C-alpha cells in the first residue's frame, strides 16, 4: 500500500476539494498482503480521507484495476455516489513464500504438543523438505482449473494463430522502443508520479525499459515457460512488477459542483469469459461486443490500449479479428473484422517494458488511453485486457 499511498497523494493534492469529499474508494488488488487486509480501506485511511470513508477491494485477477473503474462508473450511474476514487495496486515482489502442507502440519503438531515427550516426538518428525517453500507467485500465475500457467496459455495461442517467435520478438522490440521514446519525450508527465522512498531513492520512471532492444538480442533468450521449443520468453512477455494507479470518477453534477474539468467519459464497458487455456483471447470477445452494440467497425476506434500480457497474446488477438472462421463462428459476424493499425495500438509501449502489476494494469491502461487520446486529438478509444482464469474486460471511452 505504500505504492498506492505514494500514488494517491499527488492526485489528491491537485484537486480543488478535500480528500474526504469522495463518497467511497474502490481498489483493485490481487496479491493482498496479510497485514493489509482490505487494502482499499488501508489506503483510504493512510491517504487521510477520513474515518467516514467507506472502501472495498475488488479482485478479478488482471482485471481488478479495470473492475474498480467499472464498479465506480456503475455506482455513479445508478445515482448512489457522485465522486469515487478508483484504483489498482500490486506488489508482486512481496508475493509470499508458502510453506507446504506437510510443513504446516508439522508446525501444528509441534505447537500442539503439551508435554516434553510429545514435543520431542514432534521435533523428530522434522524433514529437510519442509524448508523448501512454494513460490506463492508461481501458484498465483498458474490456472488451477486447467493447470497451465499464463505463459503456457500464450504458447497455445501462438500455435493456434501461427504467431512465430520472430513475430513476438519483433512486437516486443517495437513496444520497448515506443516506451523509450515516450519516456524521453516526457509523454508521461502528469500521468506518472515519481515515488520517494524513505531510503532517499527516487523512482521516476519504469526501469524495465530496454531502449536498445533488438530482435537479434531477443532471439538469444531461452523460452521462459516451455523449453526447449516455446516461443514465449522473458523478453517478449510482460514483466512481473509492482505498481499503483488511481483514477477519479465523477458524476456530471459533481463536476459542476466542484468545478472539475472532465477529461473523458466512459461510454460503455463489457466483460467476457472463455476457456482458461486460451484466456489471451478475452479482449477480442468483450471489445467486439461493445463495438457491435454501438455499431462500430475496427477502423472507427481511434486508439487502442490492449494490455501486453505477452507479445504473442496481443498478436493472437489481432490475428483473431482478421480471421474469417473465428469472426463468423465465435463472434457471430459476417466475416473477418480486419486488422487494427499498428500505429493506433499501444502507441507509447506497454506492459512489456512497463511491467504488469496485476491488479493495477487495468486501471493504468484506461488512464493512459485517456491521456494519449487527448494528446493525439482522438475522440473514441477502447482499453481492453485479457484476464487470467479465462476472462476479458473492455471499456469504450470518449474524450470530452
Amino acid at each position: 500500500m505504500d505504492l498506492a499511498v505514494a500514488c494517491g497523494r499527488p492526485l489528491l493534492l491537485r484537486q480543488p476539494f478535500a480528500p474526504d469529499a469522495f463518497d467511497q474508494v474502490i481498489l483493485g488488488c490481487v496479491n493482498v498482503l496479510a497485514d493489509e487486509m482490505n487494502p482499499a480501506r488501508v489506503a483510504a485511511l493512510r491517504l487521510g480521507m477520513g474515518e467516514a470513508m467507506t472502501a472495498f477491494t475488488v479482485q478479478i485477477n488482471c482485471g481488478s484495476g479495470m473492475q474498480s473503474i467499472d464498479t465506480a462508473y456503475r455506482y455513479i450511474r445508478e445515482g448512489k455516489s457522485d465522486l469515487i476514487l478508483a484504483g489498482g495496486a500490486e506488489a508482486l515482489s512481496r508475493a509470499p513464500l508458502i510453506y507446504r502442507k506437510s510443513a504446516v502440519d508439522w508446525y501444528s503438531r509441534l505447537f500442539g504438543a503439551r508435554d516434553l515427550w510429545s514435543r520431542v516426538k514432534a521435533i523428530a518428525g522434522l524433514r529437510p523438505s519442509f524448508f523448501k517453500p512454494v513460490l506463492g507467485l508461481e501458484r498465483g500465475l498458474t490456472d488451477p482449473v486447467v493447470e497451465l500457467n499464463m505463459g503456457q496459455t500464450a504458447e497455445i495461442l501462438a500455435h493456434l494463430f501461427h504467431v512465430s517467435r520472430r513475430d513476438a520478438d519483433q512486437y516486443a522490440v517495437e513496444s520497448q522502443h515506443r516506451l523509450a521514446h515516450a519516456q524521453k519525450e516526457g509523454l508521461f508527465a502528469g500521468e506518472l508520479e515519481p515515488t520517494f522512498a524513505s531510503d532517499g531513492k527516487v523512482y521516476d520512471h519504469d526501469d524495465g525499459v530496454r531502449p536498445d532492444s533488438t530482435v537479434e538480442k531477443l532471439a538469444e533468450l531461452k523460452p521462459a515457460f516451455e523449453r526447449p521449443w516455446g516461443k514465449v520468453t522473458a523478453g517478449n512477455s510482460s514483466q512481473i512488477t509492482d505498481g499503483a494507479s488511481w483514477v477519479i470518477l465523477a458524476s456530471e453534477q459533481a463536476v459542476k459542483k466542484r468545478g472539475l474539468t472532465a477529461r473523458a467519459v466512459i461510454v460503455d464497458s463489457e466483460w467476457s469469459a472463455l476457456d482458461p487455456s486460451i484466456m489471451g483471447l478475452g479482449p477480442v470477445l468483450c471489445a467486439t461486443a461493445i463495438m457491435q452494440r454501438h455499431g462500430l467497425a475496427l477502423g472507427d476506434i481511434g486508439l487502442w490500449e490492449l494490455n501486453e500480457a505477452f507479445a504473442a497474446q496481443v498478436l493472437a488477438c489481432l490475428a483473431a479479428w482478421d480471421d474469417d472462421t473465428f469472426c463468423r463462428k465465435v463472434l457471430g459476424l459476417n466475416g473477418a473484422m480486419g486488422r487494427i493499425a499498428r500505429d493506433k495500438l499501444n502507441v507509447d509501449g506497454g506492459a512489456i517494458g512497463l511491467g504488469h502489476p496485476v491488479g493495477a494494469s487495468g486501471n493504468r491502461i484506461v488512464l493512459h488511453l485517456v491521456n494519449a487520446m487527448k494528446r493525439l486529438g482522438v475522440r473514441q478509444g477502447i482499453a481492453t485486457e485479457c484476464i487470467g482464469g479465462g476472462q476479458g474486460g473492455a471499456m469504450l471511452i470518449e474524450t470530452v
Partner: protein
Amino acid sequence: MGKVWDVLAPRNLELGPAGSAGQGPWRHWRLARDEDGIAWLLLDKAGASANTLSEDVLTELNDVLAKLESDPPKGLVLRSAKPGGFIAGADIGEFKGMTDAAAVEARLTEAHAVVDRLDRLAVPTVAVIHGYCLGGGLEIALACDSRIAVDDARFGFPEVMLGLHPGLGGTVRLPRLINPLEAMGMMLTGRNVHARRAKSLGLVDTIVPERHVRAAATATVTGKKAKRGGLLIEIINSTYARKLAAKRMRAEAAKKAPIEHYPAPYALIDLWETHGGNVQDMQKAEIASFARLLVTDTSRNLVRVFFLREKLKGLADGKFAGDRIHVIGAGAMGGDIAAWCAWHGFTVTLADMKPEPLAKAVERATELYGKIGHKHIDIRNALDRLIPDLSGEGVCSADLVIEAVPETLDLKRKVYAATEPKMKPGAILATNTSSIPLQELREGLRRPDHLVGVHFFNPVSRMQLVEVVSHDQVADDVLARARAFLGRIDRLPAPVKSAPGFLVNRALTPYMLEAMVMLSEGVKRETIDAAAVQFGMPMGPIELADTVGLDICLHVAETLKAGLDRPMPDVSHVLRDKVQMGQLGRKTGKGLYEWKKGEPVKERDAPKPTPEMTDRLILPMVDVCVACLREGVVADSDTVDGAMIFATGFAPFRGGPMHYARTRGVAEIRQLLWQFAQRYGERFRPDPDWNHLT
C-alpha cells in the same frame, strides 16, 4: 471445453505442410515437403474414422516409399491426420475369413517388405503419435528411426487378445529397442502403455504437446541420430538369459492363460527364446508363427469375440443427449455406477437415506479414480462431478435416473412414486434390478414407457456388459437412448426382455446350483471349480458363488425357481445353512471356502475332475441360452454369446456358448443332456429348441 475452443480445436492438430496440401495421387496418404526440405507423410484412411493398415493402405505406402527413395527429402515426419489417434492396428476384417496358413504367410511377407522398406529408408524418419497406437500401428512407428508422443498417447500390442502375437515385425523390433522383458510383457499382456511410461521405457524419445510438434519433429530429423540398444538389452537378449526369462514367462502365463486354450503367449515365448538372437530368423519365424496361430480355432474364436464386441458397441450408436444422472441408492452397485458415470463426464447426483453409504461411495470412487486416472486434475474434476445428494435434489435436473435400491418390490415402488413426479419431461427411469420383473415395477407409473432396466454387473469398472431390459410397454426411443448412454460410459449394451434372471443370472444359476449338488454328492469343491476352469471359465462356480455372496445366490435361485416354469436343481441345504449361519462368502471371510486376503484357501491335492463333471456344469448354461433364444428373451445368438462372454467371462476362446454348442455338435449335446436327465434328474431335460438348432 467451450464454444471458442471447439472452433479452434481443428487447428491444434499439427499436420505440417501436408495439412494444406491437396489430395495427391493416393487415396489414404498425403505427402508434402516444407521449406526446410522435410517431408510430412500423413495417413488419413479414406472412408474411415480411424486408421487401420489394410492391404491397400500398405500397397500405397510402398508406392510412397518408392517416390521418397527416388527423390529423398532431408527427413520424413510420419503422422495420422485422424483426430482420434495414430493407427489402431491391422484391418481385422481382412483376417476374418482366412483358413490357409500358407496364404497368410505370403500376405504377411509382402506386408513385411513394405515395413522393412520404411525401416531401411536412408533419410531420418520420425513418427509423431497422438491418441492410440496399437498393434500394426505400433509396428509402423517402430520402423521409424524415432518416435515422438503427443501428450496422452498410448501404445500397445493387443494381438494376444485375438489369440495372436504381433506379426508385422513387432516381436523383432520391440525387444531390440527397449528392455526385452518389458517388451515381452507388453506383448504377452496386451496392456496399454501410457506416454510417460513409454518414454521411461525408451519406446518414445520425447513427449510434447501439439503446439510443439513441428519444432520437435524438425529438431529430431535434423539432429543427431539417437543411440539405440545398449548393454542391458544386449545381455537380456543373449541366449542363456532368454532361456531363463522364457521359463519364468511360461510360468506366469500359465497362471492366467493355460496353454491348451491359449497357444499364442507360448508361441510368442518360444519365438523369442529360440530366435531372439537373430533378426532375420526372428522375422521369418514371426511370420510363420503368426500364420499358424491365425488359423487356430482359438484365434478364429477370439476374432469372432472382437466382432461380437463391435456389434454390441454398435448397438450403442444412437444419441443420448443428456449430461446429468441421478442415482438412487449408494450401495455397492449404486455407488460404483455413479462413480463410473462421473468419470465419463456426467454430472452425477448420488442419493441415499443416510450419509455413511455416500461417504463410503466417495471413498471407493477416489480409490478407483486413483487407479485408472493419470492426471490429478482429471481425478479432481471427476470427484467434483460426483455429488452426494442426501436430499435427492438432483432428480429434478436429471436426464436419467438409475434406481439401485435393495431388491424389494415395495421399496422400489415407493421410490418410484416419490421420484417420478419430480423427473424432467422425457427423462428416463432406469432400474438396476436383477430379479424383479419390470412388468410389476411399472405398475403405478405415470409413464411406464419411460421405464427400462439397466442391469450392471459387479464390479462395474471391470464388467463391460450391461443388460438393457425391455418390457412390452417401453418406448423404442427410450431403449435406444439407454443404449447410447451405455456407449458414452464405455459399456456394452445387451438387449434382453424382462423375464426372470434375464439372460446372465438365469444362465449362471444352474451353473452354481449344480456345483452345490455335486458338493452334496461328495465331490470336493476344488475339483468342481477345476472342472469349470479347465473348460475355460475364469472362475469355478463355488468360488463364483462365494464371490457374489451366498445370500444373493440364494435369493436369485429362489426367485428363478418361483418365476420360471422349468425344472431347476434343488436349492441345496448347504447353501441355506451357510446363509443362515451368516457365512456368506468372500465378504464375510467364510462361505463355501475360507477366504484370506480376498483369495479362497484351496486344497492343493484335490482329485482331478472328470469330463462329465465339466459337462454337468457347463451344458445347463448353454441350455439356458437356448431357452432364452426360444423365448425371445434375447434376439439372436450373437448377442447371447457376446453377453455371456462379457458378463461372465465364458471361455472367450470358445466363441461363446452358442458358438461352442454348434462347434461341438448340437446333436451330441442334446443326447448328453438326455442321458444326464435320466441319470441325475429332470433338471437336465434339454430345451425343446435343441431340435431346431443348426
